């Protein structure tokens, strides 16, 4: 009889596939391995720069590093709620201080880089990049259709800097209805690189990445127009030994050289 056979196959398929999947995936690491793993929360502007640093770190030490990128404010909130990160690289200082005050960190951390923002326009955009955003001002005054992406000023330091810059240039009111808010600065960059917006105020480090450099052009925005982006990192309480090593590594010359290549100003320079 045909029915019972296909019914059995169905049962096997329904139960077997998930069971196999469950069995095949790696189980949570034991404590022995945990010491050789570092779980890092990093601000989105570090996406490409930090990947390079970590690749080198892995080669040198053999440790495993898991990085999650996002907005600094989001991470601060998650860490407050107990997210199991070992190391937090924020895009500013306030979030680190917040966590330190709550006793969630090993110490007050260290500045590892100073960030910069740029105006980035994808190829084919009606805008041209310039440090005073003249093209944007003109377009807004004409009433032309234009869309600009920035990171969310509420919890992304780069978004906050973008907002400050626009205010100081007297463009904030006019640009308000034209703003596309990215969840973090990398998402704002992605909106621009895909051509879905006409321009974006993003991190210098992201604009230097191949994926963006190939698809558009940018101009640095003056530091005087916004509060400095002093990027502070901190080890969290009960950080793993691998994370402690990474913390030190990030302040080493080889790591600093990589960060410099991505447009960061190093502390002490």
């Amino acid at each position, binding site marked *: 009889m045909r029915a019972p056979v296909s019914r059995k196959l169905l049962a096997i398929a329904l139960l077997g596939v*998930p069971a196999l999947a469950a069995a095949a995936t790696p189980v949570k690491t034991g404590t022995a391995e945990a010491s050789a793993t570092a779980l890092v929360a990093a601000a989105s502007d570090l996406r490409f720069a930090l990947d390079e640093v970590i690749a080198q770190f892995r080669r040198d030490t053999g440790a495993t590093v898991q990085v999650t990128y996002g907005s600094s404010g989001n991470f601060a909130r998650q860490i407050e709620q107990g997210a199991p990160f070992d190391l937090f690289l924020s895009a500013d200082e306030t979030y680190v201080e917040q966590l330190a005050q709550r006793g969630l960190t090993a110490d007050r951390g260290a500045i590892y880089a100073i960030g910069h923002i740029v105006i980035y326009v994808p190829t084919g955009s009606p805008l041209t990049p310039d440090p005073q955003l003249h093209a944007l001002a003109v377009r807004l005054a004409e009433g032309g259709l234009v869309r600009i992406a920035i990171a969310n000023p509420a919890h992304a330091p780069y978004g906050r800097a973008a907002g400050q810059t626009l205010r100081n240039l007297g463009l904030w009111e006019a640009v308000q209805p034209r703003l596309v808010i990215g969840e973090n600065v990398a998402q704002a960059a992605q909106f621009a690189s895909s051509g879905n917006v006409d321009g974006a105020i993003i991190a210098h480090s992201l604009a230097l990445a191949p994926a963006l450099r190939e698809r558009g052009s940018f101009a640095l925005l003056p530091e005087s127009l916004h509060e400095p982006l002093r990027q502070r990192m901190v080890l969290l309480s009960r950080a793993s030994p691998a994370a402690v090593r990474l913390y030190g590594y990030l302040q080493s010359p080889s790591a600093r050289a990589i960060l410099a290549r991505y447009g960061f100003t190093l502390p002490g320079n």
Partner: protein
Amino acid sequence: MDWTALGLSLRLGAVTLLLLMPFAFVLARALAFGRWRGRGVVQALVALPLILPPTVLGYYLLVALGRASPLGALFESTFGRPLVFSFEALVIASLVVNLPFAVQPMQNALAAIPGNLRDAARCCGLSPAAAMRRVELPLALPGIGTAAVLTFAHTLGEFGVVLMVGGAIPGETRTVAIAIYDSVQSFDEPAAASMALALLVIAVLALLLTNALARRAWRRD
């Protein structure tokens, strides 16, 4: 293709299935056959995750599972780590979010069983438990299959709630749906494309399977 994320998603789907199906079956049965006070309220509650925005669910789950909550505190004191941002939190979130997908198909299948069949089972000497095993379950099987397929497929695609409750910890809570989002943000289009395709294929297969099961139910009568 992020195999860890895919494996994590599959594991989440499997665990959700294993834990949710038995409970959902009992609930579906009570809703299908019972005439008890509060039945309407429970039915509405079961359907709630279908219409609530994922962020609303995520918000309330954070409140319920956070470190300050009784559940979160209990978990932390027992296991030494917080409940939020762990795989266990995802499982709990998944159980809540998938409740309607698991309960409703089974409830409909059970309610479709003609009332006098269950009476006939009694008059054949079958105890309520035996009647469930030998009459209700076989006749509701297509509905049970649909519930399982939908629950599994929906778990794979769950994004908003997972992100809020689990963060995106690689190997722990970074499911394949989140990995796709992340790949787009890191300009890794090939990875995003392959993972999106994988989920699309799974979704299509799931729909084909539920259709086939629904047709079987028809043919029976």
